[in-house]
Protein backbone atom coordinates (compact mmCIF):
# COMPACT_ATOMS: atom_id res chain seq x y z
CA UNK A 1 0.00 0.00 0.00
CA UNK A 2 1.45 3.42 -0.95
CA UNK A 3 0.83 6.05 1.70
CA UNK A 4 -0.65 9.47 1.17
CA UNK A 5 -1.30 11.48 -1.94
CA UNK A 6 1.04 13.95 -3.63
CA UNK A 7 4.50 13.89 -2.04
CA UNK A 8 5.03 10.77 0.05
CA UNK A 9 7.59 10.27 2.84
CA UNK A 10 9.72 8.04 0.60
CA UNK A 11 9.93 10.91 -1.89
CA UNK A 12 11.57 12.87 0.90
CA UNK A 13 13.68 10.16 2.57
CA UNK A 14 15.47 8.94 -0.55
CA UNK A 15 16.54 12.37 -1.91
CA UNK A 16 17.50 13.49 1.58
CA UNK A 17 19.47 10.33 2.14
CA UNK A 18 21.25 10.90 -1.17
CA UNK A 19 21.91 14.52 -0.15
CA UNK A 20 23.35 13.32 3.18
CA UNK A 21 25.52 10.82 1.34
CA UNK A 22 26.80 13.57 -0.97
CA UNK A 23 27.42 15.88 2.03
CA UNK A 24 29.36 13.15 3.84
CA UNK A 25 31.45 12.41 0.74
CA UNK A 26 31.96 16.15 0.29
CA UNK A 27 33.17 16.49 3.88
CA UNK A 28 35.63 13.66 3.33
CA UNK A 29 36.89 15.14 0.05
CA UNK A 30 37.25 18.58 1.64
CA UNK A 31 39.12 17.01 4.54
CA UNK A 32 41.52 15.29 2.12
CA UNK A 33 42.02 18.57 0.26
CA UNK A 34 42.59 20.55 3.48
CA UNK A 35 45.04 17.98 4.71
CA UNK A 36 47.01 18.06 1.44
CA UNK A 37 47.14 21.86 1.54
CA UNK A 38 48.22 21.85 5.18
CA UNK A 39 50.92 19.30 4.39
CA UNK A 40 52.15 21.42 1.48
CA UNK A 41 52.15 24.53 3.67
CA UNK A 42 54.13 22.66 6.29
CA UNK A 43 56.68 21.57 3.68
CA UNK A 44 56.94 25.13 2.33
CA UNK A 45 57.40 26.45 5.86
CA UNK A 46 60.13 23.90 6.58
CA UNK A 47 61.87 24.72 3.28
CA UNK A 48 61.69 28.45 4.04
CA UNK A 49 63.06 27.92 7.55
CA UNK A 50 65.90 25.80 6.22
CA UNK A 51 66.70 28.37 3.53
CA UNK A 52 66.67 31.19 6.13
CA UNK A 53 69.01 29.18 8.33
CA UNK A 54 71.35 28.59 5.39
CA UNK A 55 71.34 32.32 4.57
CA UNK A 56 72.05 33.13 8.20
CA UNK A 57 74.91 30.65 8.24
CA UNK A 58 76.38 32.01 5.02
CA UNK A 59 76.08 35.57 6.28
CA UNK A 60 77.73 34.77 9.60
CA UNK A 61 80.62 33.03 7.81
CA UNK A 62 80.92 35.96 5.41
CA UNK A 63 80.97 38.45 8.30
CA UNK A 64 83.54 36.31 10.11
CA UNK A 65 85.76 36.21 7.02
CA UNK A 66 85.46 39.93 6.42
CA UNK A 67 86.39 40.57 10.05
CA UNK A 68 89.39 38.23 9.75
CA UNK A 69 90.47 40.05 6.61
CA UNK A 70 90.18 43.42 8.37
CA UNK A 71 92.08 42.21 11.47
CA UNK A 72 94.77 40.61 9.25
CA UNK A 73 95.15 43.80 7.24
CA UNK A 74 95.25 46.02 10.37
CA UNK A 75 97.78 43.74 12.02
CA UNK A 76 100.02 43.66 8.97
CA UNK A 77 99.73 47.29 7.90
CA UNK A 78 99.49 49.06 11.25
CA UNK A 79 100.99 46.97 14.04
CA UNK A 80 103.53 45.48 11.62
CA UNK A 81 104.52 48.97 10.43
CA UNK A 82 104.81 50.30 14.01
CA UNK A 83 107.09 47.44 15.06
CA UNK A 84 109.15 47.93 11.88
CA UNK A 85 109.63 51.62 12.75
CA UNK A 86 110.59 50.67 16.32
CA UNK A 87 113.14 48.22 14.91
CA UNK A 88 114.51 50.81 12.50
CA UNK A 89 114.95 53.36 15.32
CA UNK A 90 116.57 50.75 17.51
CA UNK A 91 119.06 50.01 14.73
CA UNK A 92 119.81 53.76 14.48
CA UNK A 93 120.30 53.99 18.28
CA UNK A 94 122.51 50.90 18.15
CA UNK A 95 124.68 52.56 15.48
CA UNK A 96 124.96 55.77 17.59
CA UNK A 97 125.79 53.78 20.73
CA UNK A 98 128.54 51.97 18.84
CA UNK A 99 130.10 55.33 17.89
CA UNK A 100 129.89 56.72 21.47
CA UNK A 101 132.88 55.80 23.57
CA UNK A 102 131.25 56.72 26.91
CA UNK A 103 128.14 54.62 26.41
CA UNK A 104 126.90 52.73 29.48
CA UNK A 105 128.16 49.16 29.69
CA UNK A 106 125.60 46.60 28.57
CA UNK A 107 123.67 49.23 26.59
CA UNK A 108 124.63 47.76 23.24
CA UNK A 109 123.59 44.23 24.18
CA UNK A 110 120.29 45.56 25.60
CA UNK A 111 119.56 47.30 22.28
CA UNK A 112 120.58 44.12 20.44
CA UNK A 113 118.03 42.22 22.52
CA UNK A 114 115.30 44.78 21.74
CA UNK A 115 116.06 44.57 18.02
CA UNK A 116 115.82 40.80 18.20
CA UNK A 117 112.46 41.07 20.05
CA UNK A 118 111.08 43.52 17.50
CA UNK A 119 112.14 41.19 14.65
CA UNK A 120 110.38 38.37 16.39
CA UNK A 121 107.30 40.63 16.80
CA UNK A 122 107.34 41.50 13.09
CA UNK A 123 107.56 37.83 12.22
CA UNK A 124 104.70 36.93 14.58
CA UNK A 125 102.48 39.69 13.24
CA UNK A 126 103.15 38.51 9.68
CA UNK A 127 102.44 34.88 10.59
CA UNK A 128 99.22 35.70 12.42
CA UNK A 129 97.96 37.97 9.65
CA UNK A 130 98.81 35.33 7.01
CA UNK A 131 97.04 32.66 9.01
CA UNK A 132 94.00 34.87 9.34
CA UNK A 133 93.91 35.63 5.62
CA UNK A 134 96.69 34.27 3.40
CA UNK A 135 97.49 36.92 0.79
CA UNK A 136 98.52 34.25 -1.75
CA UNK A 137 95.00 32.83 -1.77
CA UNK A 138 93.56 35.87 -3.46
CA UNK A 139 96.59 36.30 -5.74
CA UNK A 140 97.49 32.74 -6.76
CA UNK A 141 94.39 30.69 -5.90
CA UNK A 142 93.64 27.68 -3.75
CA UNK A 143 95.98 25.03 -5.14
CA UNK A 144 99.08 27.24 -5.27
CA UNK A 145 98.45 28.45 -1.71
CA UNK A 146 98.01 24.91 -0.43
CA UNK A 147 101.12 23.77 -2.35
CA UNK A 148 103.11 26.55 -0.72
CA UNK A 149 101.76 25.58 2.68
CA UNK A 150 102.54 21.90 2.02
CA UNK A 151 106.13 22.81 1.03
CA UNK A 152 106.58 24.65 4.34
CA UNK A 153 105.21 21.75 6.34
CA UNK A 154 107.17 19.15 4.33
CA UNK A 155 110.36 21.13 4.91
CA UNK A 156 109.96 20.56 8.65
CA UNK A 157 110.37 16.83 7.94
CA UNK A 158 107.75 15.77 10.49
CA UNK A 159 104.97 15.04 8.06
CA UNK A 160 104.68 14.69 4.31
CA UNK A 161 101.73 16.34 2.54
CA UNK A 162 101.08 15.01 -0.92
CA UNK A 163 98.76 17.28 -2.91
CA UNK A 164 97.31 16.38 -6.30
CA UNK A 165 94.64 17.63 -8.69
CA UNK A 166 92.81 15.01 -10.77
CA UNK A 167 90.79 17.29 -13.04
CA UNK A 168 91.75 20.94 -13.13
CA UNK A 169 89.51 23.02 -10.87
CA UNK A 170 87.44 25.72 -12.53
CA UNK A 171 87.76 29.37 -11.58
CA UNK A 172 85.87 29.58 -8.30
CA UNK A 173 84.06 32.37 -6.47
CA UNK A 174 85.87 33.82 -3.49
CA UNK A 175 83.54 32.27 -0.83
CA UNK A 176 84.03 28.80 -2.38
CA UNK A 177 87.81 29.23 -2.66
CA UNK A 178 88.06 30.50 0.90
CA UNK A 179 85.67 27.79 2.15
CA UNK A 180 87.72 25.01 0.53
CA UNK A 181 90.92 26.55 1.87
CA UNK A 182 89.57 26.67 5.44
CA UNK A 183 88.24 23.11 5.16
CA UNK A 184 91.61 21.85 3.87
CA UNK A 185 93.48 23.69 6.63
CA UNK A 186 91.17 22.32 9.31
CA UNK A 187 91.68 18.76 8.04
CA UNK A 188 95.47 19.20 7.92
CA UNK A 189 95.59 20.84 11.36
CA UNK A 190 93.50 18.05 12.87
CA UNK A 191 95.86 15.44 11.47
CA UNK A 192 98.96 17.32 12.65
CA UNK A 193 97.52 17.92 16.13
CA UNK A 194 95.81 14.63 16.91
CA UNK A 195 96.60 11.84 14.44
CA UNK A 196 100.36 11.36 14.79
CA UNK A 197 100.43 10.69 11.05
CA UNK A 198 103.48 10.56 8.77
CA UNK A 199 101.69 11.22 5.50
CA UNK A 200 98.69 13.18 4.28
CA UNK A 201 97.24 12.67 0.82
CA UNK A 202 94.93 15.31 -0.61
CA UNK A 203 93.30 15.02 -3.99
CA UNK A 204 91.19 17.75 -5.56
CA UNK A 205 88.81 16.98 -8.39
CA UNK A 206 86.05 18.60 -10.40
CA UNK A 207 83.50 16.39 -12.05
CA UNK A 208 79.80 16.41 -12.74
CA UNK A 209 79.28 19.94 -11.38
CA UNK A 210 80.94 19.03 -8.11
CA UNK A 211 84.15 20.09 -6.44
CA UNK A 212 85.65 17.18 -4.56
CA UNK A 213 88.32 16.88 -1.96
CA UNK A 214 89.52 13.45 -0.90
CA UNK A 215 91.63 13.56 2.23
CA UNK A 216 93.56 10.67 3.75
CA UNK A 217 96.17 10.27 6.46
CA UNK A 218 98.01 7.31 7.95
CA UNK A 219 97.52 8.31 11.56
CA UNK A 220 95.61 6.62 14.36
CA UNK A 221 92.20 7.50 12.91
CA UNK A 222 89.05 8.33 14.80
CA UNK A 223 88.54 6.89 18.27
CA UNK A 224 85.64 4.51 17.76
CA UNK A 225 85.47 3.38 21.38
CA UNK A 226 85.75 6.60 23.31
CA UNK A 227 84.12 9.98 22.95
CA UNK A 228 83.24 10.34 19.29
CA UNK A 229 81.76 13.85 19.48
CA UNK A 230 83.28 16.23 16.96
CA UNK A 231 85.54 19.03 18.17
CA UNK A 232 84.95 22.74 17.64
CA UNK A 233 87.16 22.88 14.54
CA UNK A 234 85.40 19.93 12.99
CA UNK A 235 82.00 21.44 13.74
CA UNK A 236 83.08 24.72 12.14
CA UNK A 237 84.19 22.78 9.09
CA UNK A 238 80.83 21.02 8.87
CA UNK A 239 79.07 24.39 9.14
CA UNK A 240 81.22 25.77 6.31
CA UNK A 241 80.45 22.76 4.11
CA UNK A 242 76.76 23.09 4.88
CA UNK A 243 76.87 26.82 4.03
CA UNK A 244 78.35 25.87 0.65
CA UNK A 245 75.47 23.35 0.26
CA UNK A 246 77.97 20.52 0.22
CA UNK A 247 78.44 17.39 2.25
CA UNK A 248 81.21 15.49 3.98
CA UNK A 249 81.64 11.78 4.59
CA UNK A 250 84.38 10.78 6.99
CA UNK A 251 85.62 7.83 8.98
CA UNK A 252 88.54 5.51 9.37
CA UNK A 253 90.29 3.98 6.37
CA UNK A 254 88.89 0.66 5.30
CA UNK A 255 92.34 -0.86 4.81
CA UNK A 256 93.56 -0.13 8.32
CA UNK A 257 94.70 2.78 10.40
CA UNK A 258 94.14 6.34 9.32
CA UNK A 259 91.46 8.89 8.77
CA UNK A 260 89.64 9.57 5.52
CA UNK A 261 87.24 12.31 4.47
CA UNK A 262 85.45 13.06 1.22
CA UNK A 263 84.08 16.56 0.77
CA UNK A 264 81.70 17.35 -2.07
CA UNK A 265 80.58 20.86 -2.94
CA UNK A 266 78.21 21.57 -5.80
CA UNK A 267 79.62 24.13 -8.20
CA UNK A 268 78.40 25.15 -11.64
CA UNK A 269 80.60 26.97 -14.12
CA UNK A 270 78.64 29.98 -15.36
Amino acid at each position, binding site marked *: *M*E*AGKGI*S*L*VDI*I*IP*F*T*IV*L*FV*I*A*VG*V*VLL*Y*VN*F*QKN*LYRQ*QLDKAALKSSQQEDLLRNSIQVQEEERKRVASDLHDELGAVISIIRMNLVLIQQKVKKQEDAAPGMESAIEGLISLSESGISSVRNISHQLMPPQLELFGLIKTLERFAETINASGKIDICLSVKNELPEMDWPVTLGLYRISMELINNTIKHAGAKKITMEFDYDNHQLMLNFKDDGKGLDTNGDSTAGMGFKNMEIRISALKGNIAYGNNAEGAGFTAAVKIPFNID
Partner: protein
Amino acid sequence: MSITKAILIASDIPVLLVFFFMIARYRYLENTLKVFWWFIMCSAIVQIIALVLWLLQKNNLPLLHFYVPVGFALLVWYYKMVLAKLITKRVINAVILLFVCFSIVNSIFFQGIFIFNSNALTVESILLIILSIFTFIVLLNQEMHAIPQSVKQSLSWINSGVLIYYASTLLLFYFANYCARHYSVNINTYDWLFHSAASITMYICFFVGIWKQVKEYR
Protein backbone atom coordinates in the same frame (compact mmCIF):
# COMPACT_ATOMS: atom_id res chain seq x y z
CA MET B 1 17.76 -15.02 -8.01
CA SER B 2 16.74 -11.42 -8.73
CA ILE B 3 19.32 -8.68 -9.30
CA THR B 4 18.15 -6.92 -6.14
CA LYS B 5 18.69 -10.05 -4.07
CA ALA B 6 22.11 -10.57 -5.66
CA ILE B 7 23.13 -7.00 -4.82
CA LEU B 8 21.93 -7.34 -1.24
CA ILE B 9 23.95 -10.57 -0.87
CA ALA B 10 26.97 -9.04 -2.61
CA SER B 11 26.93 -6.15 -0.14
CA ASP B 12 28.13 -8.64 2.49
CA ILE B 13 31.29 -9.39 0.52
CA PRO B 14 33.31 -6.25 1.47
CA VAL B 15 33.04 -6.90 5.22
CA LEU B 16 34.21 -10.48 4.69
CA LEU B 17 37.03 -9.24 2.47
CA VAL B 18 38.18 -6.82 5.19
CA PHE B 19 37.83 -9.55 7.84
CA PHE B 20 39.91 -12.13 5.96
CA PHE B 21 42.48 -9.53 4.91
CA MET B 22 42.92 -8.52 8.55
CA ILE B 23 43.30 -12.15 9.63
CA ALA B 24 45.89 -12.78 6.90
CA ARG B 25 47.88 -9.67 7.86
CA TYR B 26 47.14 -9.68 11.59
CA ARG B 27 50.80 -9.61 12.65
CA TYR B 28 51.42 -6.47 10.58
CA LEU B 29 48.49 -4.64 12.15
CA GLU B 30 49.30 -1.71 14.35
CA ASN B 31 47.92 -2.01 17.94
CA THR B 32 44.90 0.25 17.41
CA LEU B 33 43.93 -1.72 14.30
CA LYS B 34 44.01 -4.90 16.36
CA VAL B 35 41.23 -3.31 18.41
CA PHE B 36 39.41 -2.39 15.19
CA TRP B 37 39.76 -6.02 14.11
CA TRP B 38 37.35 -7.01 16.92
CA PHE B 39 34.72 -4.69 15.45
CA ILE B 40 35.25 -6.15 11.96
CA MET B 41 35.11 -9.70 13.32
CA CYS B 42 31.84 -8.97 15.13
CA SER B 43 30.39 -7.33 11.99
CA ALA B 44 31.47 -10.23 9.76
CA ILE B 45 30.03 -12.92 12.03
CA VAL B 46 26.74 -11.05 12.44
CA GLN B 47 26.50 -10.43 8.67
CA ILE B 48 27.09 -14.10 7.85
CA ILE B 49 24.50 -15.34 10.36
CA ALA B 50 22.04 -12.64 9.23
CA LEU B 51 22.52 -13.67 5.60
CA VAL B 52 21.97 -17.35 6.37
CA LEU B 53 18.81 -16.56 8.36
CA TRP B 54 17.59 -14.28 5.56
CA LEU B 55 18.15 -17.00 2.97
CA LEU B 56 16.30 -19.45 5.22
CA GLN B 57 13.54 -16.83 5.39
CA LYS B 58 13.85 -16.49 9.16
CA ASN B 59 13.71 -13.23 11.09
CA ASN B 60 17.27 -12.03 11.64
CA LEU B 61 16.39 -8.85 13.53
CA PRO B 62 17.37 -10.22 16.98
CA LEU B 63 20.93 -10.24 15.68
CA LEU B 64 20.71 -6.50 15.05
CA HIS B 65 19.67 -5.92 18.67
CA PHE B 66 22.86 -7.70 19.69
CA TYR B 67 25.06 -6.12 17.02
CA VAL B 68 24.12 -2.45 17.55
CA PRO B 69 25.37 -2.07 21.18
CA VAL B 70 28.30 -4.46 20.77
CA GLY B 71 29.41 -2.97 17.42
CA PHE B 72 29.08 0.55 18.83
CA ALA B 73 31.13 -0.33 21.92
CA LEU B 74 33.89 -1.92 19.81
CA LEU B 75 34.02 0.94 17.31
CA VAL B 76 34.10 3.58 20.05
CA TRP B 77 36.79 1.53 21.84
CA TYR B 78 38.90 1.89 18.67
CA TYR B 79 38.34 5.66 18.67
CA LYS B 80 39.19 5.74 22.37
CA MET B 81 42.52 4.05 21.59
CA VAL B 82 43.51 6.38 18.74
CA LEU B 83 42.31 9.55 20.45
CA ALA B 84 43.59 8.44 23.86
CA LYS B 85 45.59 11.62 24.52
CA LEU B 86 42.87 13.97 23.32
CA ILE B 87 39.71 12.60 24.78
CA THR B 88 38.66 12.01 28.39
CA LYS B 89 38.44 8.27 28.78
CA ARG B 90 35.71 8.53 31.40
CA VAL B 91 33.48 10.45 28.98
CA ILE B 92 33.93 7.80 26.31
CA ASN B 93 33.30 4.99 28.80
CA ALA B 94 30.18 6.78 29.99
CA VAL B 95 28.93 7.20 26.40
CA ILE B 96 29.48 3.48 25.72
CA LEU B 97 27.74 2.48 28.95
CA LEU B 98 24.80 4.83 28.45
CA PHE B 99 24.32 3.76 24.86
CA VAL B 100 24.44 0.05 25.72
CA CYS B 101 21.89 0.64 28.51
CA PHE B 102 19.70 2.68 26.17
CA SER B 103 19.90 -0.03 23.53
CA ILE B 104 18.96 -2.78 26.00
CA VAL B 105 16.08 -0.73 27.42
CA ASN B 106 14.91 0.03 23.88
CA SER B 107 15.01 -3.67 22.96
CA ILE B 108 13.14 -4.73 26.10
CA PHE B 109 10.51 -2.00 26.44
CA PHE B 110 10.11 -0.11 23.14
CA GLN B 111 11.25 -2.03 20.08
CA GLY B 112 11.25 -5.75 20.80
CA ILE B 113 13.90 -8.04 19.40
CA PHE B 114 11.74 -8.94 16.39
CA ILE B 115 11.25 -5.29 15.46
CA PHE B 116 13.83 -3.15 13.67
CA ASN B 117 15.64 -1.15 16.42
CA SER B 118 15.54 2.18 14.61
CA ASN B 119 15.80 4.22 17.84
CA ALA B 120 19.11 2.64 18.83
CA LEU B 121 20.48 2.86 15.28
CA THR B 122 19.51 6.52 14.95
CA VAL B 123 21.18 7.43 18.25
CA GLU B 124 24.21 5.34 17.28
CA SER B 125 24.44 7.16 13.94
CA ILE B 126 24.25 10.60 15.58
CA LEU B 127 26.92 9.72 18.16
CA LEU B 128 29.26 8.28 15.54
CA ILE B 129 28.77 11.26 13.20
CA ILE B 130 29.77 13.59 16.07
CA LEU B 131 32.78 11.42 16.92
CA SER B 132 33.83 11.22 13.29
CA ILE B 133 33.62 15.00 12.73
CA PHE B 134 35.58 15.55 15.97
CA THR B 135 38.23 13.13 14.67
CA PHE B 136 38.49 15.04 11.38
CA ILE B 137 39.00 18.30 13.29
CA VAL B 138 41.74 16.64 15.37
CA LEU B 139 43.40 15.23 12.26
CA LEU B 140 43.40 18.64 10.57
CA ASN B 141 45.12 20.26 13.52
CA GLN B 142 48.75 20.16 12.45
CA GLU B 143 50.00 21.30 15.84
CA MET B 144 48.60 18.14 17.37
CA HIS B 145 51.23 15.41 17.56
CA ALA B 146 49.21 13.19 19.87
CA ILE B 147 48.35 10.75 17.07
CA PRO B 148 51.32 8.95 15.53
CA GLN B 149 51.77 9.36 11.76
CA SER B 150 51.40 5.60 11.21
CA VAL B 151 47.91 5.69 12.77
CA LYS B 152 46.79 8.90 11.05
CA GLN B 153 46.49 7.49 7.55
CA SER B 154 44.44 4.42 8.47
CA LEU B 155 42.35 6.51 10.87
CA SER B 156 41.54 9.00 8.09
CA TRP B 157 40.16 6.25 5.86
CA ILE B 158 38.28 4.44 8.63
CA ASN B 159 36.81 7.73 9.86
CA SER B 160 35.76 8.66 6.32
CA GLY B 161 33.97 5.31 5.98
CA VAL B 162 32.18 5.82 9.32
CA LEU B 163 31.05 9.35 8.41
CA ILE B 164 29.81 8.37 4.92
CA TYR B 165 27.91 5.32 6.16
CA TYR B 166 26.28 6.74 9.28
CA ALA B 167 25.43 10.13 7.75
CA SER B 168 23.92 8.49 4.67
CA THR B 169 21.86 5.94 6.57
CA LEU B 170 20.64 8.18 9.39
CA LEU B 171 17.27 8.92 7.77
CA LEU B 172 16.90 5.35 6.52
CA PHE B 173 17.30 4.05 10.06
CA TYR B 174 15.00 6.65 11.56
CA PHE B 175 12.15 6.00 9.11
CA ALA B 176 12.79 2.26 8.61
CA ASN B 177 9.85 1.05 10.70
CA TYR B 178 7.50 3.67 9.28
CA CYS B 179 8.44 2.70 5.73
CA ALA B 180 8.10 -1.00 6.49
CA ARG B 181 4.56 -0.40 7.78
CA HIS B 182 3.31 2.01 5.15
CA TYR B 183 5.18 1.24 1.94
CA SER B 184 5.48 -1.72 -0.38
CA VAL B 185 8.28 -4.29 -0.23
CA ASN B 186 9.64 -2.87 -3.49
CA ILE B 187 10.11 0.60 -2.06
CA ASN B 188 11.66 -0.81 1.10
CA THR B 189 14.03 -2.84 -1.05
CA TYR B 190 15.21 0.35 -2.77
CA ASP B 191 15.90 1.83 0.66
CA TRP B 192 17.99 -1.17 1.63
CA LEU B 193 19.76 -1.16 -1.71
CA PHE B 194 20.87 2.34 -0.90
CA HIS B 195 21.92 1.16 2.55
CA SER B 196 23.98 -1.56 0.85
CA ALA B 197 25.72 1.04 -1.33
CA ALA B 198 26.65 3.06 1.77
CA SER B 199 27.79 -0.09 3.55
CA ILE B 200 29.98 -1.15 0.58
CA THR B 201 31.52 2.36 0.51
CA MET B 202 32.28 2.16 4.24
CA TYR B 203 33.96 -1.24 4.06
CA ILE B 204 35.97 -0.20 0.98
CA CYS B 205 37.23 2.80 2.99
CA PHE B 206 38.09 0.44 5.87
CA PHE B 207 39.92 -1.89 3.50
CA VAL B 208 41.99 0.91 1.96
CA GLY B 209 42.90 2.28 5.40
CA ILE B 210 44.01 -1.09 6.71
CA TRP B 211 45.82 -2.00 3.49
CA LYS B 212 47.78 1.28 3.55
CA GLN B 213 48.83 0.74 7.14
CA VAL B 214 49.86 -2.87 6.49
CA LYS B 215 51.84 -1.79 3.39
CA GLU B 216 53.69 0.82 5.44
CA TYR B 217 54.36 -1.56 8.35
CA ARG B 218 55.93 -4.26 6.12
